[in-house]
């Protein structure tokens, strides 16, 4: 079984973790200001890259805390884990990752910032 490094607990078995999909997607500052197209983008559209992907994980059967990880979706290798609120580390051997947010999306006070 694959081991995943929880930033607080260290390496634990994959079965202890819960997947949360793409990271750094901020809730829109003013949802009512979005038109249908923008709202659809926020609700239904996520990146789906073949390769490194910044995503959310929760250590559900451990400390129960959320964290972010940079993981390769082809090899399933975890390239880095980092705490919520930290920017994604650069992908080894490439330019720093850029991340898209829904149009009109603004990071809210107390929520993780978008890089």
């Amino acid at each position, binding site marked *: *079984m694959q081991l995943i490094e929880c930033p607080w607990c260290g390496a634990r078995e994959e079965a202890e973790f819960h997947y949360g999909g793409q990271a750094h997607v901020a809730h829109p500052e003013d949802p009512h200001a979005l038109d*249908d197209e923008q709202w659809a983008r926020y609700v239904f559209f996520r990146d789906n890259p073949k390769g490194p992907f910044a995503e959310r994980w929760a250590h559900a059967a451990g400390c129960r805390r959320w964290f972010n990880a940079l993981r390769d979706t082809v090899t*399933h290798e975890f390239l880095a884990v980092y705490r919520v609120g930290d920017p994604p580390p650069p992908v080894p051997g490439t330019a720093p990752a850029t991340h898209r947010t829904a149009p009109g999306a603004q990071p809210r006070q107390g929520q993780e910032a978008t890089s």
Partner: protein
Amino acid sequence: MTTYANTPHTPGDVLPDHPDFLWRNPDPKPSYDVVVVGGGGHGLATAYYLAKNHGITNIAVLEKGWLAGGNMARNTTIIRSNYLWDESSGIYEHSLKLWETLEEELDYPILFSQRGVLNLAHSLQDVRDSRRRVHANQLNGIDAEWLEPDEVAKVCPIVNVSSDVRYPVHGATYQPRAGIAKHDYVAWGFARRANDLGIDLIQDCEVTGIDISDGRVTGVRTTRGRIAAGKVALAAAGHSSVLGAMAGLRLPLQSHPLQALVSELLEPVHPTVVMSNAVHVYVSQAHKGELVMGAGIDSYNGYGQRGAFHIIERQMAAALELFPVFARAHMLRTWAGIVDVTPDASPIVGLTPVRDLYLNCGWGTGGFKATPGVGWCFAHTVATGEPHPYNAPFTLSRFTTGALIDEHGAAAVAH
């Protein structure tokens, strides 16, 4: 007397002739009327019906690996049409009707076996949802029935319907016309007929770019050079997001590993197909004798065609819960495909914002059953530039308009 045994020979020197090849392996031409991207079941069926129903034969099917080596080779072949909504009933039942004559149509054995499918209910809510689905199916002319536990046991005597289990079987939906087929033969049958109609099936040819000018698609870049195209039809299943990105399209898809497994060969013991969303497994028995099992996707995104072992372990535990008789069966093999999952568990089949670029994707865990039906409808869409009535509701724009077709209840663990 001279016999094989007393003559000197090298191993393999007296093999029979190679069987006839089912298709040519042509080099790509510089230009086609239609380029289909993806040589799985959907791409092959689309090409076949473009030629057969619409007389378009200057077609190439481009496949990055070998024909039908993707999900077409990896699925568990369940065919049924007992989905909840009218839109789904339309396209899946159209497909099921085509399955019923496909062997003659392709003049090729596909081992389509209408052995029925049971979807088990294990809670009061399951019972309510299942009966609702049966009623919806019946209104749409689909052969769905509700079975009580004793009737379930009559259809499939090896299912444990005793009340002395953690999740007792409270009944099941049953579709007698549902069943299984031999996936490889289906692909080869379509490929052979497409080839006979003059279509170029080109393997080892990965599309790496899509050329667009003035909002209109003009061709594709491939590992075997540029190919011009009047129209381009995407049927790349798990890689649809990657192809979409080449055309500037962001799609509401997430690609996940979906695993399955087979046991060693056993005597025929399992007469139908049994699925359980709650216990989380489905099981059938292939013609050869292996038990074929699967369940839901691995949770994380993945393009690696492999998943985690604990998922397999849970599937087998669930199978034992339903079928105690399998306790001594050995697992022979596990594998995974890459499935493209949409937010409403329904596919996207139709036009795109780019002219002459057409999209078929999002079939997720359940598109094998749709192979002839989607081939038929997607071919119509590509040939006429208008969606066929059966795929008209399955637009990309439904995620903006809100006209979703939520089939999670009929498609979660069940494929």
